[in-house]
């Protein structure tokens, strides 16, 4: 079993069934997993902000943003032999500070941006494990598409 680590603002895709893809400590960032059950190709995006448009040079790191990150995600999946339209999609993260009332609603802005994009691309979201006031570490297993979720001081659960 090999493990691939996805950093913040990072994207990883694999077509090896014996792979687990992990990202640590999703805060208001979102973690998106796509898994093609037929081709056994899958990947994970760890995006930090909803929209790349105001960031200029920072968009060199395209996976930081939901819009450019998802474009690259679809492209990489296709390159590995997967079909984004037939993928199972799961969404994690998007935590929010309890008293956020304007700028710091980043978590919900990320989730909203992703769900709008998924609808536009006609990708059903099988699992939406988002919100709340805690971070999440997730491990995605390519052999069966399951995702293990760990939050501080709670038992691991699988989605």
């Amino acid at each position: 079993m090999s493990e691939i680590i996805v950093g913040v603002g990072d994207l990883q895709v694999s077509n090896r069934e014996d792979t687990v893809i992990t990202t640590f400590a999703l805060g208001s960032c979102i973690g998106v997993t796509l898994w093609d059950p037929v081709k056994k190709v899958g990947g994970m995006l760890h995006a930090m902000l909803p929209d790349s448009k105001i960031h200029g040079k920072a968009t060199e790191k395209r996976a930081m943003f939901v819009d450019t990150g998802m474009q690259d995600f679809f492209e990489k999946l296709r390159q590995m032999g997967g079909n984004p339209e037939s993928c199972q999609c799961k969404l994690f993260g998007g935590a929010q500070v309890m008293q956020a009332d304007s700028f710091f609603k980043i978590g919900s802005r990320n989730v909203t941006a992703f769900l709008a994009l998924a609808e536009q691309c006609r990708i059903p979201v099988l699992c939406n494990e988002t919100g709340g006031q805690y971070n999440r570490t997730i491990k995605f297993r390519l052999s069966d598409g399951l995702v293990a979720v760990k939050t501080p001081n709670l038992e691991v659960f699988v989605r």
Partner: protein
Amino acid sequence: MSDPLPLQIVCEMAKSLPAAPWLLPKLQTALLNPDTTVEETEALIKKDAGLSSAILRTANSAFFGDTKCDTLRNALLRLGNREIFKVASLTIAGRWLSNTVTGGYGWEAGDLCKHSLCVAIAAEIIAKESGKVPPDVAYLAGLLHDVGKLALAYSCADSFEEVRLHQRDNQCSWRESEKVIFGYDHTDVGGILLESWSYPQNLIQTALYYPRPSLAAHEYLPLIAHVHAAKHLSLQLGVGVGEEGFTTELDETVFAQVGLTPEMMEIAMPKILMAAEKILNAISAGPGKGVSFG
């Protein structure tokens, strides 16, 4: 519950944790004084073998030149006061914050240090953007803002379940829940600790008021508002955040008072991530970290 430990006992117990950062304010005073000689700085730094080694290592890194620096004095001359202080802040405060206290806040080993580093880097970047606060002061204030949490987790971890339940049942901030259960909270502890180590008032005030900047003395508001913003920008990244993180108080009104705009903060986020990435990658935990499919 059993009676909570008195605040003074919690602070005294924290002083028994290894690597207390008492040297840092003395070094800061010396480095800010233009009359301090390199011999005097060297004498201070020699008191700490780990810091001496970090200074030599930095001076001999490719970034600072090709020729070897084989004495501490040469290394100090090469780096200059600003860089010396940055290395000292990270080495001394980082070492204390790296004490393994995993109970209480749901931290994995090293989490507090990683989160504090993120806040320090974020505060420095925002200060550079705003021009309202010296960036090196913002960095140190960010690095030290949560010292009280380590002390509280070290001495009172057994009572944290009550803090957790009170927070959950009342949907208050974690700090307020600490106050109800213990009679004091981690900011009270942090303020006393920094005062006992003779830190300057601006850093003491930051430890006391970073969750509630509007309560701080007016002269410290810009610095504390920057740390408040840095804290919340770092929370968004999630790195090293314990279970209390997202129940930290947030006052978005103070940002406008000190000229921090939402656009400024949004643009800062990728910069913070990229600046923090090198350090975080170097110290991040490897595969595993307690998660499995069970």
